[in-house]
């Protein structure tokens, strides 16, 4: 079972863990990414997440499928990434994994977040305390999964 979405409503960790919690799963693991109040020495008050939603949705689903296919155990995966303006503490991404065993849950969670960071077309625009609004520098989008290139 997979749930992958680019969302504009607040992300709910409770909803995510309810989705992946099944009788056959001994491990429930959630990674939550949230907006922090600093970046490279700047004081941040919020981040606006810009996104190509249809493409991002396709790539997110592809990443989750890869994690599921690479797992020796059957996984239940819930992934959402936020699009829009988020103040400090707002949840930008959640990855919840339900698995019979913890090792495959940890592996899948790490795989998904690392692939999101390199392949998902989402851009961070920082809103600073001093009034500046700046796009974060970054790296070119990867066309192929990074882990498959190693």
């Amino acid at each position, binding site marked *: 079972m997979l749930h992958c979405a680019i969302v504009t409503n607040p992300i709910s960790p409770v909803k995510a863990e309810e989705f992946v919690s099944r009788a056959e799963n001994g491990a429930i693991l959630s990674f939550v990414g949230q907006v922090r109040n600093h970046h490279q020495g700047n004081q941040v008050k919020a981040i606006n997440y810009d996104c190509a939603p249809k*493409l991002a949705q396709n790539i997110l689903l592809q990443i989750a499928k890869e994690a599921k296919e690479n797992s020796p155990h059957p996984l239940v995966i819930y992934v959402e990434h936020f699009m829009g303006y988020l103040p400090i503490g707002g949840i930008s991404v959640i990855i919840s994994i339900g698995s019979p065993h913890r090792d495959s849950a940890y592996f899948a969670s790490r795989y998904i977040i690392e692939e999101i960071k390199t392949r998902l*077309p989402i851009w961070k625009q920082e809103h600073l305390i001093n009034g500046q609004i700046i*796009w*974060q520098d970054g790296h070119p989008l990867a066309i192929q999964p990074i882990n498959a290139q190693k």
Partner: protein
Amino acid sequence: MILSIETFGAFRDFYKAGFIEIECELPIQIGTIKDLIALQNIEIPNFANLVKTSVIANETEILGDAFMIDKICQLMILPPVSGGK
């Protein structure tokens, strides 16, 4: 003909309308489209490098520089992503 390319991220600062228009003939390679975009703002420092480090995509996938566009379709230019640690 005029090809319209949707913009995201840092490109939004240069194209307030949300898209880039380039005049070209079809078929055309993605790499050539990027060259034409880079020429539009040649006077802006680092703009050519921004284009060079960006990728072009349609609604479903990212297209390599050698990919050939032979009909009008929806294209997007995607600048580097911030990632994080």
